[in-house]
């Protein structure tokens, strides 16, 4: 389909712009002269992708991120719901979490070193903390914004708190929660270097930081590209899962057919 073509074209165009900016050493306020070109990075990439180390890095990072994220998703949804729906939870947990929330992932490096018996646990801890808060905040907002009549309806059917949670709060807040999960997995990746600083051996984040310490810019960019692609893959997985469970959302006809197709909702305009 032409949509996919367009997407590919846009990625290729971005690479082309990068190549031109860097190979011509453009310096218009922003300075591209010191950047590796696309071809430099591609060469580095080609060298690495054949090594076992590269795939070990990828596998280790994925395992850490996914573990941390799953724990964070569960904890974030539970805590977010509790804080949104219970005044007690809000008072006891809310403030505490708000103060802990902005603490930088790297600042957790020493904490992770001191707190956990093994480095792996420390790494998963950091990625988990990173993903936890976006999920928490999104869940809290989504639960608070729920249409009250849904809950009222379930309660007049005799539904108690658990039923309301299961049948109204979770499904109703799901679209918002999914936004949080998508952000959360992104933030996990954002913190992967910080987390893997304590790895000592493998991991895409670890490797990228190591490359940076020897000022190997093409290597750093290989790491960035790898993380970009892995992050995109994981967040796409989250979004697709999300779309399945929120198919009920009434959608504007956007994206279901071309322009003003017969039978489609007429849209004022496609752009915006």
């Amino acid at each position, binding site marked *: 389909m032409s949509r996919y073509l367009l997407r590919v074209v846009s990625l290729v165009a971005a690479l082309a712009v990068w190549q031109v900016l860097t190979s011509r050493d453009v310096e218009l306020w922003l300075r591209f002269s010191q950047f590796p070109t696309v071809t430099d990075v591609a060469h580095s990439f080609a060298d690495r992708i054949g090594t076992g180390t590269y795939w070990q890095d990828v596998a280790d990072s994925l395992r850490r991120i996914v573990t941390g994220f799953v724990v964070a998703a569960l904890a974030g949804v539970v805590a977010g719901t509790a804080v949104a729906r219970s005044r007690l939870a809000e008072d006891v947990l809310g403030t505490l979490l708000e103060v802990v929330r902005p603490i930088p992932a790297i600042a957790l490096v020493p904490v992770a070193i001191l707190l956990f018996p093994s480095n792996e646990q420390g790494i998963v801890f950091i990625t988990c903390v990173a993903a936890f808060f976006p999920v928490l905040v999104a869940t809290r907002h989504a639960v608070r914004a729920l249409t009250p*009549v*849904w809950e*009222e*309806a*379930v*309660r*007049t*059917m*005799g*539904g108690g708190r658990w*039923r309301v949670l299961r*049948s*109204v709060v979770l*499904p*109703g807040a*799901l679209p918002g929660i999914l936004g949080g999960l998508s952000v959360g997995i992104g933030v996990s990746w954002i913190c992967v270097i910080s987390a893997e600083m304590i790895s000592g051996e493998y991991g895409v984040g670890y490797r990228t930081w190591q490359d940076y310490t020897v000022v190997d810019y093409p290597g750093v960019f290989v790491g960035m590209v790898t993380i970009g692609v892995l992050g995109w893959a994981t967040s796409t997985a989250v979004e697709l899962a999300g779309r399945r469970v*929120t198919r*009920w*959302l*009434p959608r504007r006809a956007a994206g279901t057919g071309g322009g003003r197709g017969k039978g489609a909702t007429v849209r004022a305009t496609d752009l915006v």
Partner: protein
Amino acid sequence: MRPTSSDRPGARIALRDVSLGHPGTPVLSGVRVDVPAGQVLTVVGRSGCGKSTLLRTLAGLLAPLAGDVAVDRAAVRGPGADRALVFQEDALLPWRSLRANVELPLAIAGVPRPDRRARAAHWLSRVGLDGLERRLPHHVSGGQRQRVQLARALAGAPRAVLMDEPFGALDARTRAGMQDLLVDVWRDTGVTVVFVTHDVDEALFLGDRVAVLADGRLTAVHDVPHPRDRAARETPATAELRRTVLAALGAHTPEEAPLRPFS
């Protein structure tokens, strides 16, 4: 097939000098009314007079500002499965199919899945929605959604149904069908009904008694001489009552309606 609850007769609902309203907005005061078990009380009143507020209070969703609502002598402390509410607004869960919406009160009551499914199908069929079971609420029409709410309320086999203009979006024939369905259910189960409507004829047809809300009070409760008999509508007694109620609502009876009553 049809769920009967002859073992659980209708609930008795009593209000003694209750004031009600929304936080900061009192709506009705000094409301006194007693709905014996198995009776149908219809409620009429002008738009904004407090009908929905009354029903929400009976359902236990709003706490009264003063006084207590008693169901079978116990003060209401919150909503419960014994009192089903058909909301005036769209209260279907948009992520559940029509069937899943109707199944919900059954699931809450712990009815096992196959049974639940069969009963939901039964009720959807009774409100005329066979074939639409698997649609989502926003893929059906307004009147269809309203009927799903009715099916959902009845499926839970409540002891009282509180209905807020449940047939407002229905055409005459469908409306008549739904009225009859309600009468059937009432006959079979002895459920207590509080029914808000704008249609005075409907109020007279369905109600054992008709309550009139006006000026922030419950002004009158009239006994209906020949309830639930369409043919009996035009007896002098019924006609007289209709005139009384319409007058209480400030409306002119059709016969004397001037073209522009208050322009």
